[in-house]
């Protein structure tokens, strides 16, 4: 009896290992831990993409649940998700764009042409749908760094008090929405 049990030990170890490794097959290495979950939106003071005189801070965003979507016209996946984000907006979800400028690097003496960028953004949103209540221009990517953004697209769900509840890396599509966002949003909306 005892001997039989001992004989089963290698099989048990093998089974456990198989389960562990099998799960690893479906893990997404880009699904990062993020340091900002459960923390408040970091302080910032950044201009509106369409109007440099309008300055947004984290205080202006309080009082409403919203999605913050990090995007750029240079990023094909961001453009692909615009359609679905527009659908979400039509369902009454507020979406704030954080414009992530990739090419600009003052160390290399780059000139930044905001007028050209506005034109480009408007063209893009006219064609693919405009889900944004407004866009914040993060030219130096400081807010992006404070949020732990590693690229675009990335999307955050933020509650009324400004607490970050979800941080998603990659595009938002119906599957991701159901799996990561919908139930969290349902919990906080009465």
């Amino acid at each position, binding site marked *: 009896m005892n001997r039989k049990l001992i004989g089963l030990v290698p099989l048990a170890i093998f089974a456990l290992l198989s389960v562990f490794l099998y799960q690893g097959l479906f893990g997404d*290495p*880009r699904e*990062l*831990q*993020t*340091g*900002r979950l459960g923390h408040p939106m970091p302080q910032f003071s950044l201009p509106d993409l369409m109007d440099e005189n309008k300055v947004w801070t984290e205080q202006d965003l309080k009082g409403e649940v919203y999605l913050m979507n990090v995007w750029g016209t240079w990023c094909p996946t961001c453009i692909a998700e615009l359609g679905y984000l527009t659908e979400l907006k039509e369902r009454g979800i507020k979406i704030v764009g954080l414009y992530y400028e*990739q090419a600009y*690097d003052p*160390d290399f003496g780059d000139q930044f042409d905001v007028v050209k960028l506005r034109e480009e953004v408007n063209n893009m949103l006219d064609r693919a749908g405009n889900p944004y209540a407004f866009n914040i221009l993060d030219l130096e*990517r400081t807010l*992006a*760094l*404070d*949020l*732990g*953004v*590693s*690229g675009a697209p990335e999307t955050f769900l933020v509650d009324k008090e400004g607490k970050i509840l979800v941080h998603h890396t990659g595009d938002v599509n119906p599957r991701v929405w159901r799996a990561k966002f919908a139930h969290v949003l349902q919990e906080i909306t009465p």
Partner: protein
Amino acid sequence: MITRLRFVLGLCAGLFIATTNASVEDKYQFESKERAQTFAELTKELRCPKCQNQNIADSDAVVAKDLRDRVLTLVHEGKSKQEVIDFMIDRYGYFVHYQPPVTPLTVLLWILPGLIIVIGFGFIVVRQRKAAQAQEWTEADEKQLNALLEKYEQRGQQ
């Protein structure tokens, strides 16, 4: 002729290496050698969140450059190495540091291999001892032996 060519090529290579070294040193200037050292260590230890198996010194991703620049600013401000690492972990999670913290879960990675070795050797030793023990020859053993011998002898006669 060939040796001459080699000499010229070698000279060119030498010059090239000399100039690139100089430009790296010129790019970042530090108040002290310690800070330069801290910066070099940090950029090697911090992991690029985009190009996942490169450190931020190695990677050309936009985010890696942003992290490098921020590390530089923090080092210039006189922050210690640990403070900079904490700053990055706050934002990018433990992933961003190549040395993961010891937590109840990760401690398994340290303990488990040792445990497996100890159990394995223990098993061998116990088995060895059991096998080496002298066993008494009992009446029952004698009977069983005789029965078996008889059986084989019968088979041989057939």
